[in-house]
Structure formats: C-alpha cells, structure tokens
C-alpha cells in the first residue's frame, strides 16, 4: 500500500523546469532513495513535499489525503518530518530545546494557559519531555542534552537534526543528504540509525543521497533523476546498472 504518492509533479522557476512531471509512490515501511547529479531536482522535490515551494502542476498525496495546497506549517502535524541538507538547527538553543521544538506540532495548550503556566501546561511539558527523552535514549544523545548546538561538532549536529525530526513522531521522514559532511565511519553509523528507524520505529523514509554505499546499504528502492526527469526506478542494483544512469553521472556515449 502506498503511503505517499507524487503524481505528475512539476515546478518551474522562470524558464527552468526544475522538476518535470515526476511521479512516484512510496510504500509503507520502505526506505526510498532519490539519487541524481547536482541540480537534478532532488532537494526541490523535498521542498515541494514540505510545501516550501508550490508545484506548478501535479498532486501530492499523503496517507489518502491531498496535501498539494496544505500550508507548510501543517505538514509536520500531518506526520511528515524532514531534515535539511545544510543542517537547520536552532543554533543558540540547547539540544534538549531543539528536540522539544520538534514536539511543537503536538502542543495543544492555549496562549493563556501558557502565559500563566497552568498545571495542565506543566503536565503537557513533562509528557513532551518524556517523549523527547525516548528519542535521546534511542539516538544515544544523553551526554549532549544541555549543550548548545553552536558548541557541537558537525557529526553530532546531524544526529540531533535527525532526532528533532523523530520528535515529531512522523509517519514519513524526509532525509536530505544524511551523509553530507560526514566521514566514512559516521556515514556508516548514520546508515545504522536509518535502518533502526525503519525497523524499530516503523517509519517510512524518503532520502536524497549522493553516497551510493549508504544508498545500497539501507534503501529498498531507488529513483534516479536528471534535469528534473525520472531516469530509472528500481532496486539499488538495478538503478546502478542502468545505462542511462551511468551516462548521466559519467557522461559520454556508454
């Protein structure tokens, strides 16, 4: 059964077709990777799904619902979380605060009860904290709990951003280049986290990734893009062997 579907998705920036009638379906519980050379439109697809960009045409379906016109701040509440290619954490806040912001879409307290910090707000805060502590334990972030993001090394920030997305308790997780800026070992660790997220938490993952070792390690299906068009779709091995994909990456007549 498909959890997410993009139908004939297209977006133009001026004369450039960044994404050109791309259709794909993501099944419940799989890891779906999007690969392609620079400028192929991978991150643009993510920005379309998180509704930061408006598609020129096409539809986005999530969990049986049309989300093409949902405002961007509603996306998290529907159960779609994302990370960013160049880490968009709240850098002057602690790890704990960052993860608690991930709980924002579950906050129900009224403005008045927050201003007075009524017992109901206090109880809600403690229960959010319990959920956050689950994520901290899952990703082994205990020792960084009270550290400011600005003081953390890059690799840890990547994990914190992953944790913040998990705090949303999403059904669908969008990972934009989870391995960018990480060394070989850190990339492998990231791969294990993604597998754990899929197996232990049952979260469906769409990821944009350049590192083919990570893609073949974790993904069930791969979609290759070039110039905003779908080149190939299938298992990692199939896509890697596809002549069009090889040509797009290496060039030439192959």
């Amino acid at each position, binding site marked *: 059964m498909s959890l997410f579907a993009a139908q004939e998705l297209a977006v133009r920036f001026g004369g450039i077709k960044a994404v050109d009638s791309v259709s794909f379906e993501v099944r419940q519980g799989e890891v779906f990777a999007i690969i392609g050379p620079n400028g192929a439109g991978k991150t643009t697809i993510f920005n379309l799904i998180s509704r930061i960009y408006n598609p020129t045409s096409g539809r986005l379906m999530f969990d049986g619902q049309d989300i093409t016109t949902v405002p961007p701040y509603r996306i*998290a509440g529907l159960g779609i979380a994302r990370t960013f290619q160049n*880490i*968009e954490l709240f850098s002057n*806040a602690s790890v704990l605060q960052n993860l608690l912001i991930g709980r*924002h879409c579950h906050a129900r307290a009224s403005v008045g009860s927050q*201003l007075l910090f009524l017992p109901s707000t206090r109880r809600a805060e403690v229960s959010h904290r319990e959920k956050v*502590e689950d994520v901290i334990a899952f990703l082994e972030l205990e020792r960084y709990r009270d550290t400011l993001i600005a003081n953390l090394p*890059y690799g840890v920030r990547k994990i914190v951003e992953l944790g913040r997305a998990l705090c949303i308790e999403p059904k669908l997780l969008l990972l934009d280049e989870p391995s960018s800026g990480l060394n070989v070992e850190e990339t492998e660790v990231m791969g294990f986290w993604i597998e754990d997220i899929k197996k232990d938490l049952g979260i469906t993952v769409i990821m944009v990734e350049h590192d083919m070792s990570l893609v073949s390690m974790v993904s069930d299906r791969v979609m290759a893009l070039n110039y905003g068009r779908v080149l190939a779709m299938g298992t990692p091995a199939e896509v890697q062997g596809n002549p069009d994909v090889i040509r797009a990456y290496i060039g030439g007549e192959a």
Partner: protein
Amino acid sequence: MRYLFKTRYQQDLALMRHGGDRMSYGLLLVVLLLIPAVLGEFYVGELGAVFIFAITGVALMLLIGYTGLVSLGHAAFLGIGAYTNAVLLEKGVPFVITLPASGATAALAGIAIGIPTLRMSGLYLAIATLAFGSIVGTVFQKWTAVTGGFDGFAVPTPTIFGFPIEGATGVYYLSLAVLLFVLWISVNLLRSPIGRAMVAIRDSEVSAQSMGINLSLYKTIAFAVSAGMTGLSGALFAHYVRFLAPDSFDILLSIQFVTIVFVGGLGSLHGAIFGALFVRLLPQAIAIVRDYLPSAIGRMPGLEPSIFGLILVLCILFEPAGIYGRWQKVKLYFNSFPMYRRTSFRRQRAYARSERLR
C-alpha cells in the same frame, strides 16, 4: 562549583534551580522592599524608574532577544499605555481596571501593527516600526480632545482599594510588583511551547516552519505580548512623570529601550534588568561625576551622549553578550578559580550554511 543532581523532569521546569537561587533572589527581594525606608526620595524615584524601564526592557527582550524581531517603535506602545491609563483615570475608572486596560490597549495596537508588518523582517521591520512610532507620536500631538496635545495631560493620582499610590515610594512598590509579574509571565512563556517557537523563529524560520510553527501567528503573539507588557510599563511611566507630553514618546526613547536590550545582553531576562539599570543610572552617575571633573571637561556640552556612545561601542566590540554575559564570565572565574580558561566561552567555528531557502 555546584553540581545539580536531577532526578525529575519537573526540576527543569522550576522557577528557581536550587536553594542557592532561592536564597539570593529572596535576599534581593528583601533588600528591594526595604530600600524606600532607608534611601531618600530621589533615589527611590530613580529606582522606580529603573523598574519601569526594566519592564519595557523585558518586553523588548522577548521580541528582539528571543524572537529576533527588532522594533524601533516601542516608545509608541509606552505612550499608548500611558495615555490610556491617564485618560481612563481622568474619567473616574478605578486604577485596578485602568492598569490592565493599558496593557490590553497596547497589545491590541501591537496586533494591529503586527499583522501587516510581520511579513517583513530585519531592517525593513525596524523601519516599519519606526514609522509606526512617529505616526503614534503625531496622533498624541494632534488628537487634542483626548491627549491635550502640547498642553500636556496631568495624570491623576491612582488609588488601589481606597489607598492612594502617592509619591516616589508608591510608584516604586507598584513598579516592583508589576516588574515581578512581567518577569513571571516571561519565564512562563519561555518554558512553554510559545517561547520555544519564538527561539525557533529567531534561529531558523525555514526549519521552524517545518516543525509545524505558524510563523505569522507566533510572530504576532510575540509582538502582542511585548506590546502589552510595554503598555503596562507605560501606565506606570505616566505616574512616574505625572505630566504627559506627546514629545516624550519619541524615537530617542525607543532607541534607549533598544540600548537596554543590547547593552544588557541579548537573549537573557537578566540582561534586560542589567540594561535598564545601566540606561537609567548612567546619566545620574555622569551628573554626579561632572562636579568633580576639571571644569573644561565637566562643563563640556554633550558629555552624556558621548559617554553613552562610547560605552555602547566598547560593549559591542568587546562584550557582544552584554553586561549579563560579562557577569557570567566573572562568576565562572570565581567558581572555577584557579582553573578558569579564557576559551570556556569561545564557540567552535560556526559551520557555513549555504543555499538557504527563499
């Protein structure tokens, strides 16, 4: 050094972190309550003014320091609060109603100005609020039927349940109470989802949005709360000056408020208090020192603004974290003596964020 052993999540939500905090804040409160009995009328009046400025400082700290929205029009909200309070008192409305009404009117004005302008950010927002400030200033001048225009407006003495709030001592205690209330509200805000949403908007709007934060809603809430607190401070300001003139709510006052936030230390409520102390007491200190200086320097015109400017420049150059940041460093120095390292507060190099959206 004190090491906190945390066993419950509630501990992170507590107002006071440990016994030491309770002790020192309690002691400070006792000292503040006793001051009017010890010091003269002049000093009590000046400290009252510090409290009033501190309320605005806290309000502006929520906006600039925590939400990252710069306002150069907060003198207008102060004025709205002051005139609402004075005009309602004149009409015979009791003070227990006019005080919250001043806050509410200013908050409504904050929402009204917030909805059209909060789509802007940075310098554009600053200029829009500057324009708002000058419009409100003009309204105070021209709407003579209500404000009295340049003739001014004598503020009636307020009474609370039959007790008149008179003189410097009355304003002192009243301002202290309102300051404590405003601080309590601010701390509440900062430990609940709204406060975290504000911090998120400050640090990254794109990712705040994908965390489910409605940017315009939360910016408007922050603006309304800040304006409302400034309105409360305005009501007290009216009793401090006792005579309202439209030109006292000008851009210079707004800039003084912004100075409070920057000199005190961005992103901390303590900073707002330190900043208010600085902004209100420095002119007095200069006036006192003037007499002891050689007359060539002491009688020099423009001594006060130049010292103000010099300190601001030095502060921005050498201590961007403000007075509170310096205070924390001094405290750590003594806590960890003789092991203090200069690098304790130095950040690791920031990683470049390229390709920011929008």
